[in-house]
């Protein structure tokens, strides 16, 4: 075990896999010699050469299209989109191409080797275009996996699993935690399973669910609730597509209440999908309406960032509302 932050954990995952798999390539804007604007790819070009770790021209659709081509011919591309806010030019290549490659060809061709890493989320004074959480645009796309880690340990294990998974994965990294999240991470190779939620705290009164940087927020809110005698069961969803319905449903069958938290705007956010599914699975066991604590239905604001964010206070209030319903 070594103390490391999320960037170091991601860098170590990339290094380990490039050593193990000579067909793996890492590329994107500024990821080469410079090592990425967040330094996630630091040292990779020196170690593995310019052919395996390189800068691309500044074109997100080009990066995604190039990556699809590589993966379709047996390579393992790990492409970086500098900010998740800039993934939209690549949306067509991801949604119409990567996600459908295997299905449309009758499994003659696939891009299972593809992983797209991208920093997402707010809390860093990033305004409109350095703060977005676009995961719900991708969770509706059949054929894609969507993964979000919450800390350094999770990031390394989930990224290694994503790169090795035989399906295209969009891997969202909570940039607010890149350097803030420091925890014990094994130096050796390990994977954490995709498609499995993790119960990070057992409880009896209400299930509270989040992913990525917001897990820290629900932990704080749960502590506040505990002081008022409310026992929260906390779940980190980890994989949003395909998501672990069973673990969430089992928890709600026990607690009878569910609060879902995400940074992205409320309307059309992934919490809606979870709420609809869980009310169907657990209808007779629910003791209060499923509640959502989310970003507002506005573009991500600069000066009112604190007000916009579904923080611990808002979550605490919602937990109380759920329990006292």
């Amino acid at each position, binding site marked *: 075990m070594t103390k490391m932050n999320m960037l170091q954990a991601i860098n170590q995952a990339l290094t380990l896999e490039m050593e193990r798999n000579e067909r793996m390539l890492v590329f994107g804007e500024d990821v080469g010699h410079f090592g990425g604007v967040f330094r996630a790819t630091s040292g990779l070009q020196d170690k593995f050469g310019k052919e395996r770790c390189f800068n691309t021209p500044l074109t997100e659709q080009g990066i995604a*299209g*190039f990556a699809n081509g590589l*993966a379709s011919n047996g390579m393992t591309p790990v492409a970086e989109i500098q900010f998740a806010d800039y993934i939209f030019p690549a949306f*067509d290549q991801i949604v119409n191409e990567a996600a459908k490659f295997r299905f*449309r060809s009758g499994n003659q061709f696939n891009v299972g080797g593809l992983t797209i890493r991208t920093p997402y989320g707010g809390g860093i004074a990033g305004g409109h275009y350095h703060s977005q959480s676009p995961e719900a645009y991708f969770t509706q796309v059949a054929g894609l996996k969507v993964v979000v880690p919450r800390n350094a340990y999770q990031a390394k294990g989930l990224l290694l699993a994503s790169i090795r998974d035989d399906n295209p994965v969009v891997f969202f990294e909570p940039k607010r935690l890149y350097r803030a999240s420091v925890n014990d991470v094994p130096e050796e190779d390990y994977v954490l399973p995709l498609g499995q939620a993790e119960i990070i705290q057992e409880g009896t009164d209400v299930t509270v669910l989040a992913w990525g940087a917001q897990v820290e927020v629900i932990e704080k809110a749960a502590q506040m609730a505990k002081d008022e005698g409310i026992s929260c069961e906390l779940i980190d969803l980890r994989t949003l597509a395909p998501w672990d319905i069973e673990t969430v449903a089992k928890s709600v069958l026990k607690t009878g209440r569910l609060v879902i938290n995400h940074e992205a705007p409320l309307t059309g956010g992934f919490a809606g999908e979870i709420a609809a599914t869980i009310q169907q699975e657990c209808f007779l066991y629910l003791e209060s309406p499923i509640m959502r604590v989310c970003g507002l239905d506005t573009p991500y604001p600069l000066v009112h960032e604190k007000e916009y964010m579904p923080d611990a206070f808002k979550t605490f209030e919602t937990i109380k509302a759920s329990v006292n319903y």
Partner: protein
Amino acid sequence: MSQTNFSQSVVHRAAFLDRDSLNIPILKILQADGTTYDKAVLPQVDEALSQRIFDACAFTRVLDERMLAAQRQGRISFYMTCTGEEAAVIGSAAALDDGDVILAQYREHASLRYRGFTTQQFMDQLFSNEQDLGKGRQMPIHYGIHELNFQTISSPLATQIPQASGVGYSLKMQGKPNVAICYFGEGAASEGDFHAGLNMASVHKVPVIFFCRNNGYAISTPTEEQYAGNGIASRGLGYGMHTIRVDGNDMLAVLAATQQARAYAVKNSAPVLIEAMTYRLGAHSSSDDPSGYRSKDEEAKWQQHDPVKRFKLWLVNQGWLTEEQEQALYSQYRDEVLAAVKVAEKVAAPAIDLLIEDVYDQPTPRLKRQLEELKQHIAKYPKAYPKTAGRL
């Protein structure tokens, strides 16, 4: 180090360049009567290669004629012909190695035939039956076959262009002496993916041939409404790419250009752009009627430049084909296509269970549940789902 000053000469009074500053020549080898131009440098071509090329031409003509008719009769849902562009497509395919990977737009099935796709394989895809390699999931003409290195076609235009750059880069990394070839029309070249793909291939020194079929129209839109520059070829130079413009109705010119492009791309690990000037003699698709946007006179003029006829005359001049042999070939393919249609339309649709396969490498629990619910529903209302009700 960053290099920003390319200019070889300096002026001290503002001097602008325009599109005509680029005088891009067009390669022509074969004349309308089937003789070659006096000073023409012929491609590497012998009798066997010529006959294989003509064979693919004849098959494609027959397939297009018969299947367009089949669409009109409602036997298949959709069709697109290659008519008028056979020289561009087959001439380029004939310059390739079998290990070269083809990424097509949709009007290049003649290259697939040249590679060896069987008549029955064409028909199974067109009829979306359970023998279709694509399991009946995509519209007709969206062919693909792994063993022939022909990547499956998709409808979104130009998406295959940056993908071809990635495929070419993978061939280079794998140490293979091969190229990717990427076909697209002049309309698709207006998509952002064209820019992305060509720039990335040039910057990363990728062995890939970008082959543009400039056939004058993107559905109803003529090239004057598609671009204002010097065609597509001028853009290749802007990306620092080896570029050539050829007469796309001249089989020998296309063959010569592609043979040299391939040799250059493999040797130098670098991309090449070929712009083949041709004409879409048929409608855009079975859903289109060109009489709404172009004249019969214009079409008649281009009939005079029929690429298959021109190549045939050359073969006759070479003593490699007779009129009788040609007629026999067309007749043989008419019978073969008709027979394959009769087989394909009797083959069942793919089983409903295939609907949830290949979405991911393994069906998810939720997909399995959706399939189970669907099957129970079909069993309850069998008359509403005649394709699958009898086979649950």
